[in-house]
């Protein structure tokens, strides 16, 4: 180990706003398009461009696709099927989700809304839980089979410009080199340093970014099926609200894999800072919850991790089209509630259409590439994001939204469940008083109206 490896070294600190293409090092080859990041967005873009005969370079900083991101997840089959027909025959998903539930939690109770149906278990399915590396690798392989060149273990650090026009990328040590292309597509994820350095996007606000941590807990498949009441091969996705985020707005989730249970929990980066709660403490709290604990008993934690997810919604989306460049997926903040993968893949598809049109016209200006923006705007992506635009602000303006109302719902459920030795009418008044002692009726009404306004 280096003796002073922890010491800060002095390096030029502020990101370069622009970088002109060095004239002394000529790029070896010019591609039609370079895609930075082999995640769901980037690999989709690369696949659809390569399929149309474009010469595509897909650059990934990890030694394999999918090893740099984590968090339990499920893909939405309908959307994925439209882009990649019968995709479920091609890669190893974890389980077919036939059980979707929400758990409103307090420290000792859980109130649930659960829907189980075998209708969700027939092809083309509704949701499938996936392990990211398998899913990402499959998608990147598709791009390669379609003709894209995949470059692993290369970290792109800068977009190169010729004037205003993006013309290439620079990769860091140990590879150290330049690649040139007519179109650069940024799919480098939630923390797009590239977009920021290139001046395409502002530094993301910690209010608009959520930090999630996850733990994957291995259990035998039969045990999982018994504990969660599932048939072999079928799985569940459970949203956890209230208790998991310790008084702040945020969410947890449980994704059931073949041989493991994945727990995620997270909230706004800003709330973590404000509360001083350490992210992994939230995980420990959930695992110790009296009703969750037996579900995980004898399980072995096999992986821990953390990642950021853009949660600013519609209002946090940066300008997506630039001369010779486009932003897609998480880098473009295209996440809507629990939907991320399908927005990522569709944005990759639309960007590919725009890149192809630009290639045919030999015109890589903003005007030509704006086809991407147009396709996005006309799609469910922007329409749904716009419809949900107030959600981020709502969570910010009502900081007790998830916690207090989960507690109230559980309190109401408790007193309704418990058999009291008092007449029914007296009990109703008692419950009403209990609930309104937690939040005055007018405040409940005001919050409800605000929430409804966002939802419709």
């Amino acid at each position, binding site marked *: 180990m*280096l003796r002073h*490896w*922890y*010491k*800060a*070294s002095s390096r030029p*600190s502020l990101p370069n706003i622009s970088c002109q293409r060095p004239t002394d090092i000529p790029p070896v080859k010019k591609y039609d398009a370079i895609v930075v990041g082999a995640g769901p967005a980037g690999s989709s873009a690369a696949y659809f461009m390569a399929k149309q005969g474009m010469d595509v370079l897909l650059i990934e*900083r*990890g*030694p394999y696709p*999918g*090893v*740099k*991101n*984590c968090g*339990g997840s499920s893909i939405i089959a309908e959307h994925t099927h439209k882009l990649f027909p019968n995709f479920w025959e091609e890669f190893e998903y974890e389980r077919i989700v036939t059980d979707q539930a929400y758990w409103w939690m307090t420290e000792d109770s859980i109130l649930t809304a659960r829907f189980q149906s075998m209708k969700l278990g027939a092809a083309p399915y509704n949701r499938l839980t996936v*392990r990211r*590396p*398998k*899913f990402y690798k499959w998608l990147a392989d598709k791009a390669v089979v379609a003709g894209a060149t995949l470059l*692993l*273990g*290369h*970290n792109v*650090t800068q977009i190169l410009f010729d004037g205003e026009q993006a013309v290439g990328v620079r*990769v*860091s*040590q*140990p590879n150290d080199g330049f690649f040139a292309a007519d179109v650069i597509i940024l799919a480098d994820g939630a*923390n797009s*340093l590239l977009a920021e350095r290139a001046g395409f996007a502002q*530094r*993301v*606000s*910690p209010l608009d*970014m959520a*930090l999630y*941590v996850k*733990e*994957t807990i291995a259990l035998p498949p039969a045990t999982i099926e018994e504990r969660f009441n599932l048939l072999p091969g079928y799985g569940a996705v459970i949203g956890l609200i209230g208790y998991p985020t310790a008084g702040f707005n945020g969410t947890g989730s449980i994704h059931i*894999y073949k041989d*493991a249970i*994945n727990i995620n929990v997270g909230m706004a*980066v*800003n709330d*973590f*800072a404000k509360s*001083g709660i*350490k*992210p*992994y403490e939230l995980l*420990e709290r959930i695992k110790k919850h009296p009703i969750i604990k037996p579900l995980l008993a004898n399980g072995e*934690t*096999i*992986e*821990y*991790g*953390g*990642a*950021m997810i853009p949660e600013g919604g519609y209002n946090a989306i940066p300008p997506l089209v630039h001369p010779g460049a486009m932003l897609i997926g998480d880098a473009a903040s295209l996440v809507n509630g629990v939907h991320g993968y399908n927005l990522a893949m569709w944005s990759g598809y639309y960007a590919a259409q725009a890149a192809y049109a630009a290639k045919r016209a030999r015109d890589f200006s903003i005007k030509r590439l704006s086809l991407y923006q147009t396709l996005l705007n006309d799609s469910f992506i922007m329409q749904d994001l716009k419809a949900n635009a107030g959600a981020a602000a709502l969570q910010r303006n009502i900081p007790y939204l998830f916690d207090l109302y989960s507690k109230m719902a559980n309190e109401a459920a408790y007193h309704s469940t418990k058999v009291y030795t008092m007449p029914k009418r007296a009990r109703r008044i008692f419950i009403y008083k209990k609930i309104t002692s937690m939040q005055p009726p007018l405040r409940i009404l005001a919050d409800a109206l605000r929430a409804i306004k966002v939802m419709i």
Partner: protein
Amino acid sequence: MGQFEDKINLLQFIPDENNQHIVIINEAECQKCTSKPCLTICPSVVFTWNNCDHHPVLVSYKQCIECGACRLICPLENIEFSFPNGGFGVIYHNG
């Protein structure tokens, strides 16, 4: 702390001896910082307080899981975060 060490020990890292990808820009600034959110927000406890004037914050960048939250939350914008060089850093196997 035991709980955390158990967690971080589960992860696979390819450490880069030649490039520290997280750097405190000006260490003197950290002494002025009252909230020090980097000490609590980091899921892999990269930042620890050193009680030393010259190097107030230790940066254990080799255990970084590359979420990038530190850069966004530093109130003095005093953390320079970039991704590790190609092929280095954390490797997730289980999604």
